[in-house]
């Protein structure tokens, strides 16, 4: 029988500490929608998505009501379009994004991910067409998210793609200039992309996945912070143990929701992604956890160690709670989506360089960082290349989601709205890396990629 303490703890996590399931994401394969004509591909993709995900939003609402656990988002990820639509004529690639946007709207999900290309080693005609269409596709749709995997530990870094992406990101920023370049917030560049990640903007349905799958992203930075408040001043063993125990409990709730969603929708359960994902709401912040750990502000010396401890303890607690942990799983440190993180950037405590160091041990990377609109394309490529190198050499997923806000300079504020939050525009080094980026070609895979 449950004890009074246990009941009160769970009730307070749900009631006051913002414990929620961040997303139920349905992965849908579009491989069987392949067609020579773009129009036919779009029709087949739209029909399949709307058929499979017809009951997704409703199921999320029902589970949320039944268990009293808020489910913040329901989303869809699809096979990377550069693969699924590889047989189509390449001139009209953005049409696929419009079809995805329409399908997402029809079933009521807030984001659909997978307008993506995997180019870590080389680029196909379809990859090229998709990448060229990214600015238009993201500026003219509301719900479509995109990613490009430009590096992996096994393959190295495709620097031709990285160089091109610097310009593509700037074009996205320009085309969505009326909305503070929000298109860039829906695009991420990956190293070692995870094929079952349920979080946006980087979700896609990997080619090794089945026809459809349910992946669940749990969250709960507020719950972790609340738990740490109870062990103020205790040593690191107690700190880690507290985070682990809390992560375990959070993940168990995610597992319950995932199993229930899978049963209700008749779609197999894939993985739980046990990430601590902040939102702009006060009390739902990873930065506040770092402060509770003893930092005056994120970015202070000790920040990298603090993120490392948090990331590792979250994983350790989570893997004990579910047999199928996947996706990104760790602590996200986006800037605009985390009010306390953004405040640290504004106060000058958190610089881009310190943030980069923290990404070497966090779950993803340079995330939702607004930079001046006049940042050269080669500098953006340089930021991406650094992040790719960290991922490639450390055998981990890393990503870059930077927003060169058109018309804004360092010190200005960009507002993206909703869960994307608002961001202080961070200064970027004025030193050029143009000649480095212009070299082109591939950076070879590191020695430890040879594991056979």
């Amino acid at each position, binding site marked *: 029988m449950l004890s009074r303490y246990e009941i009160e703890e769970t009730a307070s996590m749900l009631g006051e500490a913002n414990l929620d399931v961040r997303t139920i994401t349905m992965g849908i394969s579009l491989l069987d929608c392949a067609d020579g004509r773009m129009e036919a591909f779009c029709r087949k993709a739209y029909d399949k998505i709307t058929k499979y995900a017809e009951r997704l939003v409703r199921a999320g609402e029902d589970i949320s009501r*039944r268990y009293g656990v808020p489910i913040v988002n329901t989303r869809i990820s699809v096979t990377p379009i550069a693969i699924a639509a590889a047989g189509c004529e390449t001139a009209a690639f953005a049409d696929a994004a419009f079809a995805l946007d329409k399908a997402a709207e029809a079933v009521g999900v807030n984001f659909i991910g997978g307008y993506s290309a995997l180019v870590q080693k080389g680029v196909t005609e379809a990859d090229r067409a998709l990448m060229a269409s990214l600015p238009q596709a993201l500026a003219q749709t509301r719900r479509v998210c995109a990613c490009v995997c430009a590096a992996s530990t096994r393959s190295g870094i495709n620097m031709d793609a990285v160089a091109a992406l610097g310009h593509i990101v700037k074009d996205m920023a320009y085309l969505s200039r009326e909305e503070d370049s929000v298109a860039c917030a829906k695009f991420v560049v990956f190293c070692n992309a995870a094929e079952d990640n349920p979080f946006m903007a980087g979700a896609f349905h990997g080619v090794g996945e089945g026809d459809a799958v349910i992946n669940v992203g749990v969250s709960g930075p507020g719950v972790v912070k609340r738990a740490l408040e109870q062990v103020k001043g205790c040593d690191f063993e107690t700190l880690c143990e507290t985070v682990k125990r809390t992560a375990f409990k959070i993940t168990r709730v995610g*597992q319950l929701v995932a199993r229930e969603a899978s049963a209700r929708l008749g779609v197999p359960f894939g993985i739980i992604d046990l990430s601590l994902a902040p939102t702009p709401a006060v009390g739902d912040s990873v930065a506040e956890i770092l402060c509770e750990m003893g930092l005056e502000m994120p970015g202070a010396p000790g920040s990298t160690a603090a993120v490392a401890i948090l990331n590792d303890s979250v994983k350790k607690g989570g893997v004990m709670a579910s047999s199928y942990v996947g996706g990104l799983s760790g602590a996200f440190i986006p800037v605009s989506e985390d009010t306390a993180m953004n405040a640290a950037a504004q106060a000058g405590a958190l610089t881009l360089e310190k943030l980069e160091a923290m990404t070497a041990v966090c779950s993803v990377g340079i995330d939702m960082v607004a930079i001046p609109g006049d940042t050269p394309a080669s500098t953006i490529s340089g930021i991406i290349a650094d992040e790719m190198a960290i991922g490639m050499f450390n055998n981990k997923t890393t990503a870059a989601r930077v927003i060169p806000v058109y018309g804004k300079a360092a010190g200005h504020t960009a507002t993206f709205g909703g869960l994307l939050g608002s961001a202080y525009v961070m200064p970027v080094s004025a030193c050029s890396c143009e000649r480095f980026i212009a070299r082109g070609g591939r950076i070879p895979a590191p020695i430890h990629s040879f594991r056979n």
Partner: protein
Amino acid sequence: MNGIITVLGKDRVGIIAKVCIYLSERGINILDISQTIVHGYFNMIMIADFSLSAVLFEDAIKDLEALGGDMGVEITLRHEGVFNAMHTV
């Protein structure tokens, strides 16, 4: 299936009675009750069996919330599954 009811608020006459009447009229059996009063604040936890309930669990959640509103206390009903998931391996 069991539900966990928590009641929190300023103590007054008849809180438990009202909740119990609601439950008994709908065939919901109370398995366990624990209550404390600290500085005039009433805090009750109740575990109830909904397997023979005449109302849908989701409706009972809304009804109890409204009942709490009438009495000026906060009543929540949650599915036992969440509590078990967190506290049992």
